[in-house]
């Protein structure tokens, strides 16, 4: 069933419910870095650092690794800070979609990554983003 756009924040909250230690989450449109919906303390404006981080880290142009010289793109980032973990994921079904979230530092990074991937998968399966030309 498609979710109305007005309830995107609620959809993000539902999809991210299983992410342990969740502090805030933002669903954004790339490459513009447009916030579609978010949850966490404060107002939507407080999600801007997460959204800008997603736009910067996923839209930096072609990337390579020390293993493969073939140009590709980043699809996931886990930033391990001294106080929190930040996860940035690019949409699989909709590559213009990004889910960015932060969690408390004491959570297991592997669990945070897998539950975040599930959350994005769930959002991509339920949201109707046609209005955003996604």
């Amino acid at each position: 069933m498609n979710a109305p756009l007005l309830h995107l924040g609620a959809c993000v909250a539902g999809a991210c419910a299983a992410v342990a230690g969740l502090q805030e989450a933002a669903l954004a449109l790339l490459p513009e870095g447009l916030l579609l919906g978010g949850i966490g303390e404060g107002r939507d404006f407080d999600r801007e650092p997460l959204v800008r981080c997603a736009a910067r880290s996923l839209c930096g142009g072609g990337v390579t690794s020390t293993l493969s010289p073939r140009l590709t793109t980043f699809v996931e980032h886990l930033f391990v800070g001294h106080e929190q973990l930040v996860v940035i994921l690019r949409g699989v079904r909709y590559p213009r979609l990004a889910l960015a979230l932060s969690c408390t530092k004491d959570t297991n990074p592997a669990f945070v990554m897998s539950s975040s991937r599930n959350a994005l998968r769930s959002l991509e399966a339920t949201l109707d983003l046609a209005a955003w030309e996604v």
Partner: protein
Amino acid sequence: MSDVEWGSLMDALLRVESLGPDDCGLLSFAGSSGGIFVERGRICWVAARGLQQRLSDLLRTHSSVDSMTLDRIYQRCRSEGTLLGQTLVAEGLLQPVELERALRHHSAECLVALCRASQATIWASHPGRGYAPRFTFRPVDLLFDSVALVYPNLRFEALEELSAYSGPGRHAVAFVLDAEIRALLPLAETSESSVESVSTLARSLLSIPRASHELGMTPAFTLSTTASGDALLVWWRKQVLYAMACEDRASLIAATSQHLACA
């Protein structure tokens, strides 16, 4: 910070890297201030106006040969058309590793001197002079040496840091952030890379510190995955950024755990 035109330096080395394995010749810098001599696709040395004497100084520093002997052998090599460094090695006056070190150091100094300003380069083929492959080097070696000349202490620290995380199947490169040009410059590596691959990797990695800046945090480390499935472990120490990829998952998990323990 430095007054080196890193873009010109990398362009020149990329041009050498694109040559074939049998190419010999000179990549000269406009204004004839010097150039990069190439023997069978590899760099044999770099010359810059005003730094000719410097090679003699380095050879004297790296060997037990005195000035009079060096001058005598130099004159003989000149009249016979033979190579000074290789003659010194052949006559037991210089260890091969000492010649390698002196040639690379001198070449890096010359290349940095040639790239103080943006200059066009011109390639001219000519027959090889018979440099032994042992005394020639890859363009990427010269790139690392040139950056290390400008940041000597950071190079030493980077090699120490890389050795702490080195292991089979792990490929890492250290970059220094040049704040003036806002670019990452390759400083040291534990992999067999090329000028092209490290410069592309440097551009790719710039997005990570920029993204961290948006969060207002300096992460202990970042684990980033590409669409082709490669995972890159990225971390900072002072102004040096390290990027490491692992060939197998177990090695990646072990390296990540090492970082988590310190986070």
